[in-house]
């Protein structure tokens, strides 16, 4: 496992669509009133069949608090849930930029489109088509950036190696890394040096 991953995903195909509660499960017993014994606490209703833990983007070395699913909570129509499922927003960081952006990978159909959108977003950058299709350049100071992404396993990968759809499914966030730092980049082997918390 690369650094940055949480507990191993039990059912990876589920974790991409699992319904997580916003906060960790605070059992009612941890709060003020003591409940009568017959009350079913919130945690008892958790549907453990579907897997109790999913990757947590934020955690680094400690395992993330387990996020579990409750059937039908929050009470949102399945229609709405399905509509929102079709957006896959990932954060995009650019080395040296003061803030991150978010892109919805679902609205693009190819790497070229994505890079074009990134170009538009970080307007100082242009796609450097001459040298290598997948490099991006800051034309104002000649810095080259290499688009990388963190996949579900927590490894930092070079954008473009896998088929587009596979990329969309496995990408959790992106980082435009300065070329100078990217020397020797290869899938998995140099993940330790490049992963971010």
């Amino acid at each position, binding site marked *: 496992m690369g650094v940055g991953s949480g507990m191993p995903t039990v059912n990876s195909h589920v974790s991409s669509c699992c319904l997580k*509660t916003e906060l960790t499960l605070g059992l*009612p017993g941890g709060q003020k009133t003591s409940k009568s014994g*017959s009350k*079913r606490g919130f945690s008892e*209703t958790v549907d453990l069949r579907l897997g109790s833990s999913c990757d947590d983007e934020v955690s680094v070395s400690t395992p993330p608090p387990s996020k579990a699913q409750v059937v039908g909570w929050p009470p949102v129509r399945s229609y709405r849930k399905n509509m929102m499922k079709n957006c896959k927003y990932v954060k995009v960081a650019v080395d040296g930029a003061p803030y991150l952006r978010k892109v919805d990978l679902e609205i693009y159909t190819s790497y070229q489109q994505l890079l074009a959108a990134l170009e538009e977003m970080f307007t100082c950058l242009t796609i450097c088509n001459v040298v290598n299709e997948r490099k991006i350049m800051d034309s104002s100071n000649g810095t080259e950036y290499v688009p990388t992404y963190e996949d579900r396993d927590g490894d930092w990968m070079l954008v473009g190696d896998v088929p587009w759809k596979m990329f969309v499914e496995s990408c959790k966030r992106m980082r435009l890394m300065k070329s100078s730092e990217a020397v020797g980049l290869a899938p998995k082997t140099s993940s330790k040096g490049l992963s971010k918390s």
Partner: protein
Amino acid sequence: MCLFQSVMNYFPEEVLEHVFDFLTSHRDRNAVSLVCKSWYSVERFSREKVFIGNCYAVDPERLIARFPRVRSLTLKGKPHFADFNLVPHDWGGYVYPWIEAMAKNGINLEELRLKRMVVSDESLELLAKSFPNFKSLVLVSCDGFSTDGLAAIASNCRFLRELDLQENEVDDRKGQWLSCFPDTCTSLVSLNFACLKGEASVAALERLVARCRNLRSLRLNHAVPLDTLQKILVQAPQLNDLGTGTFVHDPDSDAYCKLKNAIKKCKSIRSLSGFLDVNTRCLPAVYPICTNLTSLNLSYAPGIYSSELIKLICHCKKLERLWILDTIGDKGLDVVASTCKELQELRVFPSDLYGVGNAAVTEEGLVAVSAGCPKLNSLLYFCQQMTNAALITVAKNCPNFIRFRLCTLDPTIPDAVTNQPLDEGFGAIVQSCKGLKRLSVSGLLTDQVFLYIGMYAEQLEMLSIAFAGDSDKGMLYVLNGCKKLKKLEIRDSPFGNVALLADVGKYETMRSLWMSSCEVTFGACKTLAEKMPRLNVEIINEGEQIEASPDDRHRVEKMYLYRTLVGPRRDAPDFVWTL
């Protein structure tokens, strides 16, 4: 009374009928029909619009027998919690028998409005072919049909005015259903196909819009691109209500420029929705119409960030209804509070359903809106946290709430500041809002909140409870106190047999009761069913061994009971038992 009655009897029936014409609400008509036999008779022959809140409370034959001149029928099927996957897929709620019966009996059906019902293509085809004057089909949260059924409607309903599909699960067969509207069809006033997932024939759409000069409401699906939208708006500048499809384009392009100009000419648009995919740099195109908007639904537009939302809302000073995502944040709600002084209805939906880590809203946003928008009367608010102090302030600021639905994303979260239950906060709401008809509570709640609800919520008709209460007392407070209660739905709360059986007659004054993951036992449900023959007490057994006679002490996982005139339904699947 005798004198009155004999005086009234001098009026010929035509006069009575004419007087009743002024009564549009079905509740008024129901009341009128109870006065005396002659009024009942006049009323039933003159009623054209019938509302049936539970399709299993009566049957088609009784409908037709009592109201032979019905032209417009509204039917609701599955229990509300079906929306949240708590009811198995094939539980029931089929519309086919209704359409079949009305077709057989020569009913002159013009309008059909369905909610949470199963609608097959077969039923749509029968509908389309049986009623030559059919004008209006509204389907909300239904399933069971495909675009083939829509094609049948389009092909056969010569005078179709309204086809309104809201949030349905439709099997999109990518057929050419839009092309099925014949060239002679010019009567469309309202067309909403936003919930369809597949490609629409844009050429057919453009031609349809061009020839339907009375079109007022048009909601597109996400497959309709921006340049088609532009062409449509040029053809239909008279639109009142617009739902965009994809709102993605190069803002420097010619097409976008043309769109901006087309939108400027649409001076009648009062309601805006869509933006299912959006390039936020294209949003300024709609600013010119924002000034007159009364209704704005951006709840399916997660692509619009908080800052963009705020920029847009700043233009919407006449807004009365706003549906958004919690990406707007408390800051955005501040802007709503200072801009939208006419706001009556606010719905803030959760954006982070899949744990991507988006912001939510807190009690602060709600307090701000309550302070800034004195006309607020309807709320649906999904929030990360809440406090009693905030709810008390909201109650003071807005005593006019008719609908108040609060949903904390963690269902048992206490007051974020004091760690107390949220009893006092909701208590303040019910005490202050004397006209409250619908309430959903959430957060850490004890029996106390139900004491308040029973005491103060005199007009309450619908109450939704989840993960709340300590004992049967809670439910008893509600059943004893809320005289106008029609629908009660409870999940995961410790209410049991004592509460269920305390006042069995109460359930005949209500439309329905849902209890799931509570403490009621099989035996108690049987007892209730025995005592009340005019209730259907249904037990839903999912995935469990269906024993011939389960132990009476066994807890029931899901129970749904409702009053009915027609006994146990005959279309119940194997896993539904009517006791």
